[in-house]
Protein backbone atom coordinates (compact mmCIF):
# COMPACT_ATOMS: atom_id res chain seq x y z
CA UNK A 1 0.00 0.00 0.00
CA UNK A 2 2.78 2.39 0.96
CA UNK A 3 4.56 1.45 -2.23
CA UNK A 4 1.36 2.17 -4.11
CA UNK A 5 1.12 5.66 -2.61
CA UNK A 6 4.72 6.36 -3.49
CA UNK A 7 4.19 5.18 -7.06
CA UNK A 8 1.03 7.27 -7.31
CA UNK A 9 3.01 10.34 -6.30
CA UNK A 10 5.56 9.48 -8.96
CA UNK A 11 2.73 9.17 -11.44
CA UNK A 12 1.31 12.55 -10.51
CA UNK A 13 4.76 14.04 -10.86
CA UNK A 14 5.19 12.58 -14.36
CA UNK A 15 1.70 13.79 -15.18
CA UNK A 16 2.58 17.33 -14.12
CA UNK A 17 5.59 17.28 -16.37
CA UNK A 18 3.54 15.97 -19.28
CA UNK A 19 1.01 18.70 -18.66
CA UNK A 20 3.66 21.39 -19.03
CA UNK A 21 4.65 19.97 -22.42
CA UNK A 22 1.14 19.18 -23.58
CA UNK A 23 -0.22 22.60 -22.60
CA UNK A 24 2.30 24.34 -24.84
CA UNK A 25 1.69 21.93 -27.70
CA UNK A 26 -2.05 22.22 -27.46
CA UNK A 27 -1.95 26.03 -27.19
CA UNK A 28 0.25 26.25 -30.26
CA UNK A 29 -1.96 23.86 -32.13
CA UNK A 30 -5.21 25.43 -30.96
CA UNK A 31 -4.20 28.96 -31.89
CA UNK A 32 -1.77 28.72 -34.77
CA UNK A 33 -2.99 25.35 -36.08
CA UNK A 34 0.64 24.21 -36.06
CA UNK A 35 1.92 20.69 -35.43
CA UNK A 36 5.19 21.28 -33.65
CA UNK A 37 7.62 18.37 -33.47
CA UNK A 38 10.37 20.73 -32.32
CA UNK A 39 8.60 21.10 -28.98
CA UNK A 40 10.78 18.34 -27.54
CA UNK A 41 13.85 20.28 -28.63
CA UNK A 42 12.76 23.24 -26.53
CA UNK A 43 12.35 20.86 -23.59
CA UNK A 44 15.92 19.69 -24.19
CA UNK A 45 17.16 23.30 -24.52
CA UNK A 46 15.54 24.19 -21.18
CA UNK A 47 17.42 21.38 -19.48
CA UNK A 48 20.76 22.31 -21.07
CA UNK A 49 20.30 25.99 -20.24
CA UNK A 50 19.46 25.14 -16.63
CA UNK A 51 22.49 22.90 -16.24
CA UNK A 52 24.77 25.56 -17.74
CA UNK A 53 23.39 28.54 -15.82
CA UNK A 54 23.17 26.65 -12.53
CA UNK A 55 26.84 25.76 -12.90
CA UNK A 56 27.79 29.33 -13.79
CA UNK A 57 25.78 31.04 -11.04
CA UNK A 58 26.20 28.29 -8.46
CA UNK A 59 22.52 28.54 -7.67
CA UNK A 60 19.80 26.18 -8.81
CA UNK A 61 16.98 28.72 -8.52
CA UNK A 62 18.87 31.48 -10.32
CA UNK A 63 19.92 29.02 -13.02
CA UNK A 64 16.33 27.90 -13.44
CA UNK A 65 15.05 31.46 -13.82
CA UNK A 66 17.74 32.32 -16.36
CA UNK A 67 17.05 29.10 -18.24
CA UNK A 68 13.36 29.91 -18.36
CA UNK A 69 14.08 33.31 -19.86
CA UNK A 70 16.59 31.83 -22.31
CA UNK A 71 14.10 29.22 -23.54
CA UNK A 72 11.45 31.90 -23.99
CA UNK A 73 13.86 33.98 -26.07
CA UNK A 74 14.91 30.89 -28.07
CA UNK A 75 11.26 30.17 -28.76
CA UNK A 76 10.61 33.71 -29.92
CA UNK A 77 13.66 33.72 -32.19
CA UNK A 78 12.76 30.29 -33.58
CA UNK A 79 9.23 31.47 -34.27
CA UNK A 80 10.33 34.58 -36.13
CA UNK A 81 12.98 32.85 -38.24
CA UNK A 82 11.61 29.42 -38.96
CA UNK A 83 8.06 28.86 -37.74
CA UNK A 84 6.30 31.93 -39.12
CA UNK A 85 6.47 30.84 -42.79
CA UNK A 86 4.83 27.54 -41.82
CA UNK A 87 1.55 29.08 -40.65
CA UNK A 88 -1.32 28.36 -42.98
CA UNK A 89 0.49 25.47 -44.67
CA UNK A 90 -0.79 21.92 -44.48
CA UNK A 91 0.08 19.59 -41.63
CA UNK A 92 2.52 17.56 -43.69
CA UNK A 93 4.59 20.70 -44.26
CA UNK A 94 4.51 21.37 -40.52
CA UNK A 95 5.68 17.86 -39.75
CA UNK A 96 8.55 18.05 -42.23
CA UNK A 97 9.62 21.56 -41.34
CA UNK A 98 9.59 21.06 -37.60
CA UNK A 99 11.24 17.64 -38.03
CA UNK A 100 14.03 19.51 -39.79
CA UNK A 101 14.23 21.94 -36.88
CA UNK A 102 14.48 19.00 -34.47
CA UNK A 103 17.38 17.50 -36.45
CA UNK A 104 19.03 20.93 -36.48
CA UNK A 105 18.71 21.41 -32.72
CA UNK A 106 20.08 17.95 -31.93
CA UNK A 107 23.29 18.71 -33.79
CA UNK A 108 23.41 22.31 -32.59
CA UNK A 109 23.30 21.12 -28.97
CA UNK A 110 25.99 18.55 -29.76
CA UNK A 111 28.12 21.29 -31.27
CA UNK A 112 27.72 23.65 -28.29
CA UNK A 113 27.61 21.30 -25.31
CA UNK A 114 29.33 18.24 -26.73
CA UNK A 115 27.98 14.72 -27.03
CA UNK A 116 28.54 13.66 -23.43
CA UNK A 117 25.44 15.03 -21.71
CA UNK A 118 25.34 16.95 -18.42
CA UNK A 119 24.10 16.60 -14.90
CA UNK A 120 22.42 19.23 -12.80
CA UNK A 121 22.88 18.87 -9.06
CA UNK A 122 20.29 20.04 -6.61
CA UNK A 123 20.76 22.15 -3.48
CA UNK A 124 21.28 19.78 -0.57
CA UNK A 125 18.02 20.61 1.21
CA UNK A 126 16.13 19.40 -1.86
CA UNK A 127 17.71 15.97 -1.66
CA UNK A 128 16.07 14.98 1.61
CA UNK A 129 12.94 12.93 1.85
CA UNK A 130 10.03 14.11 3.99
CA UNK A 131 7.30 12.11 5.57
CA UNK A 132 4.16 12.92 3.57
CA UNK A 133 1.87 10.60 5.52
CA UNK A 134 2.96 8.33 8.36
CA UNK A 135 5.34 5.74 6.95
CA UNK A 136 5.69 7.26 3.47
CA UNK A 137 8.85 9.21 2.78
CA UNK A 138 9.05 11.15 -0.44
CA UNK A 139 11.87 13.26 -1.94
CA UNK A 140 11.36 16.98 -1.37
CA UNK A 141 12.34 17.84 -4.90
CA UNK A 142 9.60 15.72 -6.46
CA UNK A 143 7.07 17.41 -4.19
CA UNK A 144 8.46 20.74 -5.30
CA UNK A 145 7.90 19.73 -8.93
CA UNK A 146 4.28 18.83 -8.20
CA UNK A 147 3.68 22.05 -6.27
CA UNK A 148 5.37 24.40 -8.70
CA UNK A 149 3.68 22.82 -11.70
CA UNK A 150 0.28 23.09 -10.06
CA UNK A 151 1.01 26.77 -9.51
CA UNK A 152 2.01 27.15 -13.15
CA UNK A 153 -1.15 25.37 -14.27
CA UNK A 154 -3.24 27.71 -12.13
CA UNK A 155 -1.35 30.72 -13.46
CA UNK A 156 -1.91 29.52 -17.01
CA UNK A 157 -5.60 29.04 -16.32
CA UNK A 158 -5.94 32.53 -14.85
CA UNK A 159 -3.94 34.03 -17.72
CA UNK A 160 -6.03 32.38 -20.40
CA UNK A 161 -9.41 32.86 -18.74
CA UNK A 162 -9.09 36.13 -16.82
CA UNK A 163 -6.63 38.48 -18.52
CA UNK A 164 -6.68 40.58 -21.64
CA UNK A 165 -3.87 38.55 -23.20
CA UNK A 166 -5.82 35.38 -22.47
CA UNK A 167 -8.89 36.89 -24.05
CA UNK A 168 -6.90 37.61 -27.20
CA UNK A 169 -5.51 34.08 -27.17
CA UNK A 170 -8.98 32.59 -26.95
CA UNK A 171 -10.26 34.98 -29.58
CA UNK A 172 -7.36 34.09 -31.84
CA UNK A 173 -8.22 30.42 -31.49
CA UNK A 174 -11.83 30.86 -32.51
CA UNK A 175 -11.54 33.48 -35.26
CA UNK A 176 -8.13 34.80 -36.20
CA UNK A 177 -9.28 36.99 -39.11
CA UNK A 178 -11.70 38.85 -36.90
CA UNK A 179 -9.05 39.45 -34.24
CA UNK A 180 -6.74 40.80 -36.92
CA UNK A 181 -9.51 42.98 -38.35
CA UNK A 182 -10.13 44.48 -34.93
CA UNK A 183 -6.63 45.87 -34.95
CA UNK A 184 -4.81 43.32 -32.85
CA UNK A 185 -1.25 42.59 -33.91
CA UNK A 186 -1.83 38.93 -34.65
CA UNK A 187 1.80 38.27 -35.60
CA UNK A 188 2.98 39.50 -32.23
CA UNK A 189 0.30 37.44 -30.51
CA UNK A 190 1.46 34.31 -32.33
CA UNK A 191 5.07 34.99 -31.41
CA UNK A 192 4.12 35.47 -27.76
CA UNK A 193 2.07 32.27 -27.68
CA UNK A 194 4.91 30.32 -29.27
CA UNK A 195 7.33 31.83 -26.76
CA UNK A 196 4.97 30.90 -23.94
CA UNK A 197 4.76 27.33 -25.23
CA UNK A 198 8.54 27.22 -25.50
CA UNK A 199 8.92 28.52 -21.95
CA UNK A 200 6.51 25.86 -20.66
CA UNK A 201 8.47 23.14 -22.47
CA UNK A 202 11.75 24.57 -21.23
CA UNK A 203 10.32 24.69 -17.72
CA UNK A 204 9.43 21.00 -17.94
CA UNK A 205 12.95 20.28 -19.16
CA UNK A 206 14.69 22.20 -16.43
CA UNK A 207 12.51 20.71 -13.69
CA UNK A 208 13.27 17.22 -14.96
CA UNK A 209 16.99 17.89 -15.45
CA UNK A 210 18.12 17.01 -11.90
CA UNK A 211 16.24 13.69 -12.01
CA UNK A 212 17.40 12.49 -15.42
CA UNK A 213 20.62 13.08 -17.25
CA UNK A 214 20.57 16.03 -19.58
CA UNK A 215 21.25 14.53 -22.98
CA UNK A 216 20.65 14.92 -26.70
CA UNK A 217 17.34 13.51 -27.84
CA UNK A 218 15.88 13.61 -24.31
CA UNK A 219 12.83 15.40 -25.67
CA UNK A 220 12.02 12.84 -28.32
CA UNK A 221 10.51 10.15 -26.11
CA UNK A 222 8.52 12.46 -23.92
CA UNK A 223 7.18 14.40 -26.92
CA UNK A 224 5.26 11.33 -28.03
CA UNK A 225 3.83 10.93 -24.52
CA UNK A 226 2.72 14.55 -24.72
CA UNK A 227 1.03 13.77 -28.04
CA UNK A 228 -0.79 10.86 -26.40
CA UNK A 229 -1.93 13.24 -23.66
CA UNK A 230 -3.27 15.67 -26.24
CA UNK A 231 -5.07 12.95 -28.18
CA UNK A 232 -6.72 11.63 -25.00
CA UNK A 233 -7.54 15.09 -23.69
CA UNK A 234 -8.75 16.53 -26.98
CA UNK A 235 -6.59 18.65 -29.26
CA UNK A 236 -6.72 22.33 -28.34
CA UNK A 237 -8.10 21.88 -24.83
CA UNK A 238 -5.93 22.89 -21.87
CA UNK A 239 -8.37 21.42 -19.37
CA UNK A 240 -8.33 18.15 -21.31
CA UNK A 241 -4.53 18.24 -21.34
CA UNK A 242 -4.49 18.60 -17.54
CA UNK A 243 -6.83 15.69 -16.87
CA UNK A 244 -5.23 13.46 -19.51
CA UNK A 245 -1.69 14.27 -18.34
CA UNK A 246 -2.41 13.10 -14.80
CA UNK A 247 -4.25 10.05 -16.14
CA UNK A 248 -1.37 9.10 -18.42
CA UNK A 249 1.25 9.81 -15.74
CA UNK A 250 -0.55 7.65 -13.18
CA UNK A 251 -1.34 4.75 -15.48
CA UNK A 252 2.14 4.65 -16.97
CA UNK A 253 3.94 4.74 -13.62
CA UNK A 254 1.63 2.42 -11.75
CA UNK A 255 1.46 0.07 -14.72
CA UNK A 256 5.23 -0.23 -14.85
CA UNK A 257 5.36 -0.85 -11.12
CA UNK A 258 2.57 -3.39 -10.77
CA UNK A 259 1.73 -5.07 -14.09
CA UNK A 260 4.74 -7.43 -14.07
CA UNK A 261 3.79 -8.63 -10.56
CA UNK A 262 0.15 -9.01 -11.47
CA UNK A 263 1.11 -11.05 -14.52
CA UNK A 264 3.32 -13.24 -12.37
CA UNK A 265 0.31 -14.33 -10.37
CA UNK A 266 -1.50 -15.38 -13.56
CA UNK A 267 1.28 -16.63 -15.83
CA UNK A 268 4.46 -18.59 -15.28
CA UNK A 269 7.29 -16.39 -13.99
CA UNK A 270 9.16 -16.90 -17.25
CA UNK A 271 6.24 -15.72 -19.37
CA UNK A 272 5.54 -12.83 -17.04
CA UNK A 273 9.08 -11.50 -17.13
CA UNK A 274 9.01 -11.59 -20.93
CA UNK A 275 5.58 -10.04 -21.30
CA UNK A 276 5.51 -7.75 -18.28
CA UNK A 277 7.78 -4.88 -19.30
CA UNK A 278 6.46 -4.88 -22.87
CA UNK A 279 2.84 -4.91 -21.75
CA UNK A 280 3.21 -2.25 -19.07
CA UNK A 281 4.83 0.19 -21.47
CA UNK A 282 2.00 -0.41 -23.94
CA UNK A 283 -0.72 0.35 -21.40
CA UNK A 284 -1.21 4.03 -22.14
CA UNK A 285 -1.38 3.38 -25.87
CA UNK A 286 -4.10 0.82 -25.24
CA UNK A 287 -5.89 3.40 -23.13
CA UNK A 288 -5.57 5.83 -26.02
CA UNK A 289 -6.93 3.25 -28.46
CA UNK A 290 -9.82 2.51 -26.13
CA UNK A 291 -10.73 6.16 -25.75
CA UNK A 292 -10.50 6.69 -29.50
CA UNK A 293 -13.04 3.96 -30.12
CA UNK A 294 -15.63 5.71 -27.97
CA UNK A 295 -14.58 9.34 -28.30
CA UNK A 296 -12.55 9.95 -31.46
CA UNK A 297 -12.18 13.64 -30.55
CA UNK A 298 -10.75 12.96 -27.09
CA UNK A 299 -12.27 13.42 -23.64
CA UNK A 300 -12.68 17.19 -23.82
CA UNK A 301 -13.02 18.14 -27.49
CA UNK A 302 -12.41 21.85 -28.04
CA UNK A 303 -15.74 23.35 -28.95
CA UNK A 304 -14.87 24.84 -32.32
CA UNK A 305 -13.12 21.89 -33.93
Amino acid at each position, binding site marked *: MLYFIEQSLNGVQLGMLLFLLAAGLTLI*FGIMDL*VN*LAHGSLYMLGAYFAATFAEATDSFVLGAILALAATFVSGVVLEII*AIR*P*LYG*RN*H*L*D*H*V*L*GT*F*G*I*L*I*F*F*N*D*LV*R*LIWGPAGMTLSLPSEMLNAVQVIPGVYYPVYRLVIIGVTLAVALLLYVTVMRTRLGMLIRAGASNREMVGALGINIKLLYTLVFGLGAALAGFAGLMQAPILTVQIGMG*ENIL*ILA*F*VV*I*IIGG*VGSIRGAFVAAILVGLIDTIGRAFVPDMLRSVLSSDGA*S*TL*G*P*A*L*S*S*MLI*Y*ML*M*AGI*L*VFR*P*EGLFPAANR
Partner: protein
Amino acid sequence: MSAWLTPRSVITVGVLAILALLPLYASLSGDQFAMTLFTRIIIMAIAAVSLDLIMGYGGMVSFGHAAYLGIGAYAVGILWKEGAASGFVQWPVAIGAAALFALAVGALSLRTRGVYFIMITLAFAQMIYYAALGMDRYGGDDGMTIRQRSQFGSLIDLDNRTLFYYLCFALLLASIYLVSRLVNSRFGQVIQGARSNERRMRAIGFPVFRYRLVCFTIAGAMCGLAGALLANHTNFVSPAMMFWTRSGDLMVFVVLGGLGTPFGPLIGTATFLLLEEALSRVTEYSGLFLGPGLLLVALYLRGGIDGLIGGARRG
Protein backbone atom coordinates in the same frame (compact mmCIF):
# COMPACT_ATOMS: atom_id res chain seq x y z
CA MET B 1 11.35 15.73 -79.75
CA SER B 2 9.54 12.55 -78.93
CA ALA B 3 7.16 12.85 -76.03
CA TRP B 4 8.90 10.49 -73.66
CA LEU B 5 12.25 12.29 -73.75
CA THR B 6 11.55 14.60 -70.83
CA PRO B 7 14.03 15.56 -68.12
CA ARG B 8 12.00 13.39 -65.77
CA SER B 9 12.21 10.23 -67.86
CA VAL B 10 15.91 10.78 -68.63
CA ILE B 11 16.72 11.12 -64.92
CA THR B 12 14.54 8.16 -63.98
CA VAL B 13 16.18 5.93 -66.58
CA GLY B 14 19.59 7.23 -65.46
CA VAL B 15 18.92 6.38 -61.81
CA LEU B 16 17.67 2.91 -62.72
CA ALA B 17 20.70 2.32 -64.95
CA ILE B 18 23.07 3.34 -62.14
CA LEU B 19 21.29 1.02 -59.73
CA ALA B 20 21.34 -1.83 -62.23
CA LEU B 21 25.06 -1.46 -62.95
CA LEU B 22 26.22 -0.75 -59.39
CA PRO B 23 27.29 -4.35 -58.54
CA LEU B 24 29.46 -4.29 -61.66
CA TYR B 25 31.17 -1.11 -60.48
CA ALA B 26 31.52 -2.50 -56.97
CA SER B 27 33.17 -5.72 -58.14
CA LEU B 28 35.50 -3.86 -60.51
CA SER B 29 36.60 -1.29 -57.95
CA GLY B 30 36.28 -3.53 -54.91
CA ASP B 31 34.14 -0.87 -53.23
CA GLN B 32 32.08 -3.06 -50.89
CA PHE B 33 30.81 -0.07 -48.97
CA ALA B 34 28.96 1.19 -52.04
CA MET B 35 27.17 -2.17 -52.23
CA THR B 36 26.10 -1.93 -48.60
CA LEU B 37 24.95 1.67 -48.97
CA PHE B 38 23.00 1.08 -52.16
CA THR B 39 21.37 -2.10 -50.90
CA ARG B 40 20.16 -0.03 -47.98
CA ILE B 41 18.93 2.71 -50.29
CA ILE B 42 16.95 0.21 -52.35
CA ILE B 43 15.37 -1.40 -49.28
CA MET B 44 14.43 1.95 -47.76
CA ALA B 45 13.04 2.98 -51.15
CA ILE B 46 10.63 0.01 -51.03
CA ALA B 47 9.41 1.29 -47.66
CA ALA B 48 9.13 4.80 -49.10
CA VAL B 49 7.16 3.53 -52.10
CA SER B 50 4.69 1.87 -49.74
CA LEU B 51 4.37 5.07 -47.72
CA ASP B 52 3.81 7.04 -50.91
CA LEU B 53 0.84 4.81 -51.70
CA ILE B 54 -1.05 5.98 -48.61
CA MET B 55 0.48 9.42 -48.09
CA GLY B 56 0.96 10.64 -51.65
CA TYR B 57 -1.94 9.03 -53.44
CA GLY B 58 -4.28 8.46 -50.50
CA GLY B 59 -3.63 11.66 -48.55
CA MET B 60 -3.24 9.65 -45.32
CA VAL B 61 -0.31 11.27 -43.54
CA SER B 62 0.90 8.25 -41.58
CA PHE B 63 3.65 9.11 -39.13
CA GLY B 64 4.23 5.55 -37.97
CA HIS B 65 5.49 3.80 -41.03
CA ALA B 66 8.76 2.63 -39.48
CA ALA B 67 6.70 0.31 -37.26
CA TYR B 68 5.90 -1.93 -40.23
CA LEU B 69 9.54 -1.95 -41.20
CA GLY B 70 10.37 -3.03 -37.65
CA ILE B 71 7.63 -5.66 -37.51
CA GLY B 72 8.87 -7.21 -40.75
CA ALA B 73 12.45 -7.22 -39.48
CA TYR B 74 11.51 -8.60 -36.06
CA ALA B 75 9.42 -11.34 -37.69
CA VAL B 76 12.59 -12.55 -39.41
CA GLY B 77 14.66 -12.16 -36.25
CA ILE B 78 12.20 -13.85 -33.88
CA LEU B 79 11.55 -16.76 -36.24
CA TRP B 80 15.29 -17.29 -36.69
CA LYS B 81 15.76 -17.27 -32.91
CA GLU B 82 12.97 -19.82 -32.51
CA GLY B 83 14.55 -22.09 -35.09
CA ALA B 84 12.60 -21.28 -38.26
CA ALA B 85 15.29 -20.09 -40.64
CA SER B 86 13.38 -20.80 -43.84
CA GLY B 87 12.53 -17.71 -45.83
CA PHE B 88 9.40 -19.46 -47.06
CA VAL B 89 8.14 -19.16 -43.49
CA GLN B 90 9.84 -15.92 -42.43
CA TRP B 91 8.86 -13.65 -45.28
CA PRO B 92 5.14 -14.49 -45.43
CA VAL B 93 4.98 -14.08 -41.65
CA ALA B 94 6.79 -10.72 -41.91
CA ILE B 95 4.35 -9.50 -44.54
CA GLY B 96 1.34 -10.95 -42.74
CA ALA B 97 2.26 -9.55 -39.33
CA ALA B 98 2.86 -6.07 -40.75
CA ALA B 99 -0.43 -6.23 -42.66
CA LEU B 100 -2.29 -7.33 -39.54
CA PHE B 101 -0.85 -4.49 -37.47
CA ALA B 102 -1.63 -2.03 -40.27
CA LEU B 103 -5.20 -3.34 -40.32
CA ALA B 104 -5.57 -2.76 -36.57
CA VAL B 105 -3.94 0.68 -36.60
CA GLY B 106 -5.87 1.69 -39.69
CA ALA B 107 -9.19 0.53 -38.25
CA LEU B 108 -8.65 2.82 -35.26
CA SER B 109 -6.85 5.77 -36.77
CA LEU B 110 -8.79 6.11 -40.04
CA ARG B 111 -11.82 7.08 -37.98
CA THR B 112 -10.04 10.36 -37.35
CA ARG B 113 -8.77 13.17 -39.57
CA GLY B 114 -5.91 15.57 -39.98
CA VAL B 115 -3.65 16.13 -37.05
CA TYR B 116 -5.33 13.40 -35.01
CA PHE B 117 -4.44 10.88 -37.68
CA ILE B 118 -0.80 12.00 -37.68
CA MET B 119 -0.49 11.79 -33.91
CA ILE B 120 -2.34 8.49 -33.56
CA THR B 121 -0.31 6.64 -36.16
CA LEU B 122 2.76 8.10 -34.44
CA ALA B 123 1.63 6.90 -31.03
CA PHE B 124 0.83 3.37 -32.18
CA ALA B 125 4.21 3.05 -33.84
CA GLN B 126 5.80 4.19 -30.59
CA MET B 127 3.81 1.48 -28.80
CA ILE B 128 5.44 -1.17 -30.97
CA TYR B 129 8.81 0.45 -30.31
CA TYR B 130 8.27 0.07 -26.56
CA ALA B 131 7.00 -3.47 -27.02
CA ALA B 132 10.24 -4.37 -28.81
CA LEU B 133 12.21 -2.56 -26.12
CA GLY B 134 10.59 -4.76 -23.48
CA MET B 135 11.25 -8.09 -25.21
CA ASP B 136 14.35 -9.19 -23.33
CA ARG B 137 14.38 -12.56 -25.01
CA TYR B 138 14.92 -10.86 -28.35
CA GLY B 139 17.62 -8.47 -27.25
CA GLY B 140 15.50 -5.72 -25.68
CA ASP B 141 17.17 -2.36 -25.93
CA ASP B 142 20.38 -3.73 -27.46
CA GLY B 143 18.72 -5.47 -30.36
CA MET B 144 19.55 -8.90 -31.65
CA THR B 145 22.08 -10.16 -34.13
CA ILE B 146 20.64 -12.59 -36.66
CA ARG B 147 23.39 -15.05 -37.48
CA GLN B 148 21.73 -16.56 -40.50
CA ARG B 149 19.99 -14.99 -43.45
CA SER B 150 16.63 -16.34 -44.58
CA GLN B 151 17.10 -19.76 -46.20
CA PHE B 152 15.46 -20.34 -49.57
CA GLY B 153 16.95 -23.78 -50.22
CA SER B 154 18.51 -24.02 -53.64
CA LEU B 155 16.31 -21.23 -55.04
CA ILE B 156 18.48 -18.27 -54.07
CA ASP B 157 21.39 -17.80 -51.69
CA LEU B 158 20.97 -14.49 -49.85
CA ASP B 159 24.53 -14.64 -48.55
CA ASN B 160 25.65 -13.82 -52.05
CA ARG B 161 25.70 -10.02 -51.87
CA THR B 162 25.20 -9.46 -55.58
CA LEU B 163 22.27 -11.85 -55.74
CA PHE B 164 20.72 -10.24 -52.66
CA TYR B 165 21.19 -6.81 -54.21
CA TYR B 166 19.43 -7.80 -57.40
CA LEU B 167 16.65 -9.48 -55.45
CA CYS B 168 16.05 -6.22 -53.57
CA PHE B 169 16.24 -4.27 -56.81
CA ALA B 170 13.73 -6.57 -58.48
CA LEU B 171 11.38 -6.27 -55.50
CA LEU B 172 11.71 -2.48 -55.63
CA LEU B 173 10.76 -2.43 -59.31
CA ALA B 174 7.92 -4.83 -58.57
CA SER B 175 6.57 -2.58 -55.80
CA ILE B 176 6.80 0.53 -57.98
CA TYR B 177 4.95 -1.38 -60.71
CA LEU B 178 2.38 -2.68 -58.23
CA VAL B 179 1.70 0.78 -56.81
CA SER B 180 1.38 2.40 -60.22
CA ARG B 181 -1.01 -0.34 -61.38
CA LEU B 182 -2.93 0.00 -58.14
CA VAL B 183 -3.38 3.77 -58.24
CA ASN B 184 -4.51 3.68 -61.86
CA SER B 185 -7.07 0.98 -61.17
CA ARG B 186 -10.65 1.68 -60.13
CA PHE B 187 -9.58 1.06 -56.54
CA GLY B 188 -6.81 3.64 -56.84
CA GLN B 189 -9.13 6.17 -58.42
CA VAL B 190 -11.45 5.86 -55.43
CA ILE B 191 -8.51 6.33 -53.06
CA GLN B 192 -7.31 9.41 -54.94
CA GLY B 193 -10.83 10.74 -55.21
CA ALA B 194 -11.21 10.45 -51.45
CA ARG B 195 -8.02 12.46 -51.02
CA SER B 196 -9.37 15.30 -53.15
CA ASN B 197 -12.92 15.32 -51.86
CA GLU B 198 -13.94 12.76 -49.31
CA ARG B 199 -17.48 14.04 -48.86
CA ARG B 200 -18.21 13.81 -52.55
CA MET B 201 -16.85 10.27 -52.79
CA ARG B 202 -19.08 9.27 -49.93
CA ALA B 203 -22.05 11.00 -51.49
CA ILE B 204 -21.52 9.03 -54.71
CA GLY B 205 -21.78 5.95 -52.57
CA PHE B 206 -18.24 4.69 -52.02
CA PRO B 207 -17.46 3.29 -48.57
CA VAL B 208 -14.36 5.48 -48.24
CA PHE B 209 -13.32 4.06 -44.89
CA ARG B 210 -13.11 0.50 -46.21
CA TYR B 211 -11.19 1.53 -49.32
CA ARG B 212 -8.72 3.47 -47.21
CA LEU B 213 -8.32 0.62 -44.75
CA VAL B 214 -7.49 -1.82 -47.55
CA CYS B 215 -5.01 0.66 -49.01
CA PHE B 216 -3.43 1.24 -45.59
CA THR B 217 -3.09 -2.52 -45.06
CA ILE B 218 -1.49 -3.08 -48.47
CA ALA B 219 1.07 -0.37 -47.70
CA GLY B 220 1.79 -1.98 -44.31
CA ALA B 221 2.33 -5.37 -45.97
CA MET B 222 4.74 -3.90 -48.54
CA CYS B 223 6.68 -2.17 -45.80
CA GLY B 224 6.79 -5.44 -43.85
CA LEU B 225 8.55 -7.02 -46.83
CA ALA B 226 11.04 -4.15 -46.81
CA GLY B 227 11.58 -4.89 -43.11
CA ALA B 228 12.32 -8.55 -43.84
CA LEU B 229 14.87 -7.44 -46.44
CA LEU B 230 16.41 -4.96 -44.02
CA ALA B 231 16.86 -7.63 -41.34
CA ASN B 232 18.62 -9.81 -43.90
CA HIS B 233 20.75 -6.93 -45.08
CA THR B 234 22.02 -5.79 -41.67
CA ASN B 235 21.78 -9.20 -39.95
CA PHE B 236 20.48 -7.23 -37.01
CA VAL B 237 17.23 -5.97 -35.56
CA SER B 238 16.79 -3.39 -32.81
CA PRO B 239 13.99 -1.19 -31.49
CA ALA B 240 15.88 1.86 -32.78
CA MET B 241 14.87 1.02 -36.34
CA MET B 242 11.26 1.85 -35.49
CA PHE B 243 11.79 4.87 -33.27
CA TRP B 244 9.50 7.65 -34.43
CA THR B 245 12.29 9.68 -36.00
CA ARG B 246 12.79 6.78 -38.44
CA SER B 247 9.15 7.25 -39.51
CA GLY B 248 10.00 10.91 -39.99
CA ASP B 249 12.93 9.93 -42.23
CA LEU B 250 10.60 7.86 -44.41
CA MET B 251 8.24 10.81 -44.79
CA VAL B 252 11.18 12.98 -45.74
CA PHE B 253 12.24 10.49 -48.44
CA VAL B 254 8.79 10.55 -50.01
CA VAL B 255 8.24 14.31 -49.90
CA LEU B 256 11.77 15.07 -51.05
CA GLY B 257 11.34 12.83 -54.08
CA GLY B 258 7.82 13.94 -54.87
CA LEU B 259 4.52 12.96 -53.29
CA GLY B 260 2.27 10.81 -55.40
CA THR B 261 4.78 10.03 -58.13
CA PRO B 262 5.90 6.53 -59.10
CA PHE B 263 9.67 7.05 -58.94
CA GLY B 264 9.71 9.97 -56.50
CA PRO B 265 10.18 7.82 -53.37
CA LEU B 266 13.21 6.07 -54.91
CA ILE B 267 14.80 9.34 -56.03
CA GLY B 268 14.07 10.98 -52.66
CA THR B 269 15.53 8.06 -50.70
CA ALA B 270 18.66 7.93 -52.81
CA THR B 271 19.15 11.70 -52.67
CA PHE B 272 18.71 11.95 -48.92
CA LEU B 273 20.81 8.93 -47.94
CA LEU B 274 23.62 9.84 -50.34
CA LEU B 275 23.56 13.45 -49.17
CA GLU B 276 23.64 12.32 -45.54
CA GLU B 277 26.57 10.03 -46.31
CA ALA B 278 28.46 12.76 -48.17
CA LEU B 279 27.82 15.33 -45.44
CA SER B 280 28.94 12.97 -42.70
CA ARG B 281 32.32 12.72 -44.43
CA VAL B 282 32.74 16.48 -44.42
CA THR B 283 31.28 17.42 -41.07
CA GLU B 284 30.40 15.75 -37.82
CA TYR B 285 27.31 17.91 -37.53
CA SER B 286 25.39 17.07 -40.68
CA GLY B 287 22.09 17.95 -39.00
CA LEU B 288 23.01 21.62 -39.02
CA PHE B 289 22.64 21.50 -42.81
CA LEU B 290 20.06 18.74 -43.30
CA GLY B 291 17.62 20.26 -40.79
CA PRO B 292 17.28 23.70 -42.36
CA GLY B 293 17.35 21.97 -45.75
CA LEU B 294 14.25 20.01 -44.78
CA LEU B 295 12.52 23.17 -43.62
CA LEU B 296 13.29 24.78 -46.98
CA VAL B 297 11.98 21.72 -48.84
CA ALA B 298 8.78 21.89 -46.79
CA LEU B 299 8.43 25.59 -47.52
CA TYR B 300 9.50 25.99 -51.12
CA LEU B 301 9.81 22.60 -52.83
CA ARG B 302 6.27 21.32 -52.62
CA GLY B 303 6.49 18.96 -55.58
CA GLY B 304 9.81 17.55 -54.40
CA ILE B 305 12.59 16.72 -56.82
CA ASP B 306 10.05 15.31 -59.24
CA GLY B 307 8.33 18.69 -59.37
CA LEU B 308 11.70 20.33 -59.97
CA ILE B 309 12.68 18.18 -62.94
CA GLY B 310 9.19 17.89 -64.37
CA GLY B 311 8.13 21.46 -63.70
CA ALA B 312 9.69 22.99 -66.80
CA ARG B 313 7.62 20.89 -69.17
CA ARG B 314 4.37 21.12 -67.33
CA GLY B 315 4.67 24.89 -67.28
